[in-house]
């Protein structure tokens, strides 16, 4: 589904990703872990098409297409979804309008009819349950005045509505209490299908008790310094990151 080859990216003239290679197949869950500042969000944003990062080398192939050739909205329409580490507040646009606009854009891209606000209510009713969110959230402005946990849940709500093939969850666990964490993780698990794949970015092992990864990669200094199975996450939990950083020269 996704093949990243020797990816280099920079921002503000500074190289952040220094040669990342990664292959993800349908049905898999990959965790990307690593200390703060190692480039995890940069990788997530580059996959989603953030214009603030310049790809200086390497490639990303997604479903047989050159992902880097697509605009951010085209990537979304092709099934790529990023749950933001810091979801953006958009005062003045209701969650309901925003979600329906996004939903319809994706339907249009697939050659399907748009749904009207009434039809969309039915879609929403079901999706709100996935993240145990109250319908009143729909009439509020996108993320505006939401608590940290509500913002993260709202990201997963969007994921539920947009039904992506490749979901990248960037620190979706940060700022969540244990109940919210469980709800969000269960939401993600419910959305899992053999035909889609998930990248879970986190620097705590905690989330991985709920969303169990098939592979764990450790990112440090813009490079993947170690890959392994789910037991690698436990090892990191016990030993920290330092034992991986020094031998890697970071």
């Amino acid at each position, binding site marked *: 589904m996704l093949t990243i080859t020797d990816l280099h990216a920079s921002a503000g003239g500074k190289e952040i990703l220094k040669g990342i290679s990664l292959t993800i197949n349908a049905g898999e869950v990959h965790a990307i872990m690593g200390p703060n500042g190692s480039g995890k969000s940069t990788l997530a944003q580059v996959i*989603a098409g*953030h*214009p603030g990062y310049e790809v200086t080398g390497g490639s990303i192939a997604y479903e047989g297409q050159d992902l880097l050739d697509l605009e951010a909205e085209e990537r979304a329409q092709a099934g790529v979804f*990023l749950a933001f580490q810091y979801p*953006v507040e*958009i*005062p003045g*646009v209701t969650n309901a309008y925003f979600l329906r606009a*996004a939903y319809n854009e994706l339907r249009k891209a697939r050659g399907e009819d748009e749904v009207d606000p009434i039809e969309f209510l039915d879609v929403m009713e079901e999706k709100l349950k996935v993240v145990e969110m109250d319908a009143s959230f729909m009439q509020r402005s996108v993320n505006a005045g939401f608590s940290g946990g509500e913002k993260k849940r709202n990201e997963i709500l969007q994921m539920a509505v*947009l039904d992506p093939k490749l979901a990248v969850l960037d620190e979706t666990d940060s700022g969540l209490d244990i109940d919210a964490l469980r709800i969000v993780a269960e939401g993600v698990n419910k959305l899992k299908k053999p035909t889609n794949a998930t990248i879970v970015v986190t620097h705590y092992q905690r989330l991985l008790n709920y969303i169990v990864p098939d592979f764990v990669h450790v990112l440090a200094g813009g490079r993947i310094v170690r890959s392994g199975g789910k037991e690698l996450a436990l090892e990191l939990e016990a030993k920290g990151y330092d034992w991986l950083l020094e031998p890697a020269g970071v």
Partner: protein
Amino acid sequence: MPTTSYADQFAAALAAGEGPAWLPALRERAFARFHALGFPTTRDEDWHFTSVTPIAERTFKAIRPAATTLTLADLEAHLLDPDWHRLVFVNGRLEPALSTFAGLPAEVQVSTLSEALREQPEWVQKHLGTLAAFDTAAFTALNTAFMQDGVVVRVPKGEVVEVALHILHVTDAQAQGAAIHPRLLVVAEPLAQLTLVESHVAVGAPSYLVNAVAEISVANGARVDHYKLQRESAEAYHVGTVQVTQGRDSIYHSFSFAEGAALSRTNVYTKLAGTGSEARLNGLYVLDGAQHADHQTFVEHLAEACASRELYKGILDGESHGVFNGKVYVDPVAQRTDGKQTNKALILSEKARVDTKPQLEIFADDVKCTHGATVGRLEQLPLFYLKSRGIGAENARALLTYAFAAEVLETIEVDALRVTLEKAIFERFTHHRMD
């Protein structure tokens, strides 16, 4: 700037004028003042960014309009809410057949200026021209010299008017080349409440000058909500001045919306003269092409513990030019003043520009006064967020432009009006219907 071109018109108007003896005297004083001041120039501090040369170079004519042939159906889009009490003026002339205010509580007096002058000249004399000073304001002087049929509203003590009063000024082809000087006098007596909607609209694209003056007295414990919609013809000139005086614990909320006219200037001035009074002055202007819109606010904190809040936003496209000048004066007696002023402009094109100037004069020490101004383009991060959900660049920009306006439209407390403006702005930028 030449003002002599209006002298003949003034002499004729004075000769034809009716009303009590003090009125021609007031008019003469006003015209003399206008003559002495002349039209403002960009050398005047208050007009630094706005040249009124296009107005000063022409001589707009006083007209005696014939009864209109426009019907309510022609004005449907401008009625906003058909259930409101409504006074419709076409080219400055009241059209009783298009108006409806019989449903107002009997105690509330709504009349034309000429009626009020006939029926209660002393009461009118006590108020008219006393709030809207013209010694330093040429356009207010010109209005006072030429004002014709205006509206006089008196809400007696304790009376709460539940349904909004809409004063709708319509201009059409008959107004080509004309000057119209609407006048509004509102007196809300102690504890009275009134919601006023003042619209200025056009049918077709005539070129004319509207020079409106409103005087509003908000007595102790009274509240006036005043919505002004400037949707003049694209060829028109609009100068509007609202001058308010507030008593103790009174509330005056103003919302000023401007999207019309080639050149416009909107002044909202309030004097917080009674302890504990509150003013909220908000506004939104949306410009395109070669439009120029200038907004000036002036809040005078003249008593203790008063609050003022201002939020003005502008959206500018094409080669348009916006000006915002927010003046705040805090008198030495006005301790515990709480003032906040914000103005934000969103620039959509290369050539649009904004000049913004906050002016704070503070002479008391126990004061909380802040101001902030931003001028900029759409932010990258929200754009990326929307695009990352599959919303195309053009739609994302349109949606964020609407959202920029929505923050201030949200403060409109009259539902029918808020929804109308939200829809209008949404459709203007997204080219989609809002549902």
